[in-house]
C-alpha cells in the first residue's frame, strides 16, 4: 500500500469539502485535522518508540497558550501568524525536553506515571499565570492575516491553510518514521538491549523522539488555537491526555493512518453525544475497555492484519509474520 497515494486521495477529498456546501462542516473537518495531527504526534511516541506518555495535553496546551497569547498581542503584524505558530511549537518542544528529560530516567510504568505527574505542574502554571487567562483561558484569539495577504478570518481561507499545515505535518511524521532515525526508534522499541549492543544510545534516541512528538503535539495545539480562537484549561488537562491515547488505540497503534481514523471517530462521537453530558465519559471508558480487551490492533491495524493474512494465504508457504500488537506501518 502506497502511503503517499492514499494520503493524496485523502487530501483531495478534504479539498472538496468547502466546495460542496452542506456535505460536511469545514469547522468539524478542521477539528478532526487538529486532533488527527495530535494523535499522530502521540503515536510517533507510543507506536514507533513504545513509550506511554500521559503528558501530551501539556504540549497541546502549551503551544495553544503561547500561540494564542502572541496572536492577541501581535496578531495584526504581517508576520504575526507564522511567528506565533513557531513560538508555540518551540515552547512545546522545550516543555517536552524538560518532561522527557526527567521521565526518560525511569522505565516502563514509572515513565508513564512521571509524565502524568509532571503534566500536573504545567496545568498548575496555566491556572496561576496571568497571561494564560487563569480559569477563563484565552478567548477571542484573532486569526490575523497570513503574511499580510490572506485574511484568515474567512473560514474557507482558514480551512485551506489548515489543510496545508495538516498535510505538511502528516508527511513530516511519515518521513520521520521511514528515516534511519525512525528505524532506530523501532529497533529500540522491539529490543532495547539489542539496539544498545549495536551501539545506539537508547535513551538519547527516545528523548529526541519525545521532544519531536511534543513539538508536533504543539503544532496541532497551535493550529487548534488559531482555528477556534480559544484555549482553555481543558486543553492542558489529563482528560485531553487520555483522549489522545484513546484515539490512537482505537485507530491502531503503530499505523500511520490509525490515529487519523481514531481522531475522526472520537471527535465525531463527541459531537454526536454532546447532548448526553456526563455519560460521554462512561461511553469513552467503555470504548477503552472494549478496545483493550478485544480490539487491540485498532480499526486500521485490524484491517492491515486481515489483508496481511489474506496475502499470506495466497502466497503459501510463507509463514505469517507475528507482529501484534504493533502493526507494520501502512
Amino acid at each position: 500500500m502506497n502511503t503517499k497515494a492514499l494520503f493524496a486521495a485523502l487530501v483531495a477529498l478534504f479539498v472538496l469539502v468547502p466546495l460542496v456546501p452542506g456535505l460536511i462542516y469545514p469547522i468539524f473537518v478542521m477539528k478532526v485535522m487538529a486532533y488527527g495531527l495530535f494523535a499522530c504526534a502521540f503515536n510517533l511516541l507510543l507506536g514507533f518508540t513504545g513509550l506511554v506518555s500521559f503528558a501530551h495535553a501539556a504540549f497541546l496546551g502549551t503551544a495553544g497558550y503561547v500561540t494564542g497569547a502572541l496572536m492577541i498581542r501581535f496578531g495584526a503584524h504581517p508576520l504575526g501568524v507564522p511567528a506565533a505558530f513557531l513560538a508555540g511549537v518551540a515552547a512545546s518542544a522545550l516543555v517536552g525536553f524538560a518532561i522527557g528529560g526527567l521521565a526518560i530516567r525511569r522505565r516502563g510504568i514509572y515513565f508513564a506515571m512521571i509524565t502524568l505527574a509532571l503534566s500536573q505542574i504545567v496545568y498548575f502554571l496555566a491556572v496561576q499565570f496571568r497571561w494564560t487567562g487563569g480559569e477563563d483561558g484565552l478567548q477571542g484569539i484573532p486569526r490575523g492575516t497570513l503574511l499580510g495577504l490572506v485574511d484568515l478570518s474567512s473560514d474557507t481561507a482558514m480551512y485551506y491553510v489548515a489543510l496545508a499545515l495538516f498535510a505538511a505535518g502528516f508527511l513530516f511524521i511519515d518521513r520521520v518514521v521511514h528515516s534511519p532515525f525512525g528505524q532506530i526508534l523501532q529497533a529500540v522499541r522491539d529490543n532495547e538491549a539489542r539496539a544498545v549492543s549495536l551501539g545506539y544510545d537508547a535513551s538519547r534516541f527516545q528523548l529526541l523522539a519525545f521532544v519531536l512528538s511534543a513539538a508536533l503535539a504543539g503544532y496541532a495545539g497551535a493550529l487548534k488555537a488559531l482555528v477556534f480562537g480559544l484555549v482553555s484549561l481543558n486543553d492542558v488537562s489529563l482528560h485531553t491526555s487520555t483522549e489522545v491515547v484513546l484515539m490512537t488505540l482505537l485507530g491502531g497503534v503503530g499505523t500511520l493512518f490509525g490515529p487519523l481514523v481514531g481522531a475522526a471517530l472520537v471527535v465525531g462521537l463527541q459531537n454526536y453525544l454532546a447532548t448526553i453530558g456526563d455519560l460521554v465519559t462512561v461511553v469513552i471508558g467503555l470504548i477503552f475497555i472494549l478496545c483493550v480487551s478485544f480490539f487491540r490492533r485498532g480499526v486500521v491495524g485490524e484491517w492491515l492484519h486481515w489483508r496481511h493474512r489474506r496475502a499470506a494465504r495466497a502466497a503459501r508457504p510463507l509463514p505469517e509474520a507475528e507482529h501484534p500488537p504493533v502493526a507494520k506501518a501502512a
Partner: protein
Amino acid sequence: MSDITLQAFMAQLTIGLIGGCFYAMLSMGLAIIFGLLNIINFTHGAQFMMAAFLAWIGLTQVGPWLGQPDLQVNFWLALVLAPALVAVFGMAIERTLLRRLYHLDHLYGLLLTFGVALVMEGGFRYVFGVSGQGYEPPEILQGPVDVGFMLLPKYRVFVVAASLLICLATWYLFERTKLGAYLRAGTENPRLLQAFGINVPVMITLTYGFGVALAGIAGVLAAPIMQITPLMGGSLLNIVFAVVVIGGLGSILGAMLTGLGLGLIEGLTKVVYPEASTVVVFVIMALALLLRPAGLFGREA
C-alpha cells in the same frame, strides 16, 4: 515565618499528617497490587471514591430508598461493608477483564484499569452530579480533643491512629507472616510457587481485592473529612502517583513512609507558600528524579 503562630503551624502540620496518611494507604495498595500483578491500578482513585460514596449512601440514602427513614448504615458498619463491596467489584473486574491481559505488555493492563476508572467516575457524576456531599462523623468522634499543645477535632486524631494501625498491620501481614511469604514468593517466581501447590491465580485475585480494600478503607475514612464528589479520587491519585515514583513500588514500608513524609512536607508548604502546596509533591518528584533516578526504595518496572 515570625508572624505565624505556633498554633497555626501545628494545625497545618496536622492537616499535612492526615493527608500523608491517605497517601500512605493508597500508595501501599498500589505497591501491593503492583508487586503481584505488575500493573499500576489506575482504578485506585475511583475505588477510593466509590467507597466514600457507598458510606454516604448507606448513611443518608438507603433508608429513604427503602421507605424506612430511620434505617441507617452507620459509620462503623460502613467501614467494613463499603471496602468489602468495592473489593468484590474489583475482584470481578480482575477475574473477567484484567486476567486476559497478563500475557501482554503492561501498557494494556494500565489502559484497562484507566477505562474502568472513567466508567465509574462518569457513572457517579451522572447519578450524583459534581457538587460535594457532606458526611457527619459518628457521635462518639465528634467534638474536639485536647492533645496537650492544641485542641484537635476528635475525628482527625482517630483517622491518623486508624490509618497508621492499618498501615502497620498490612506491613506485618506481608513481611512477617507465612501468607506474606507466599505473596512475596509470588512476586519473585509465580510458576515455582504454583508448582508447590499454591493456587496462584486465586492468590492474584485476592491480592488485588486486598489492595482495593485498602483504597476502600481510605475512602470511608476520608468521607467525613473531604467533600464527597465523583472526582475526589482522581485528583488524589495524581499526587499518589508522584509519591509512588519517589518511593518506588518495591517496598510496602517505603510506600508508607514516603506517603507520610510527603504529606507533612505538603502541610509545611501550606504555611510558607499556600499556592504551591498543590504542586510541591510534583516538584519534589522532579528533584528526586534528578538526584536519585532509581527511586528511594525502588525496583524498576
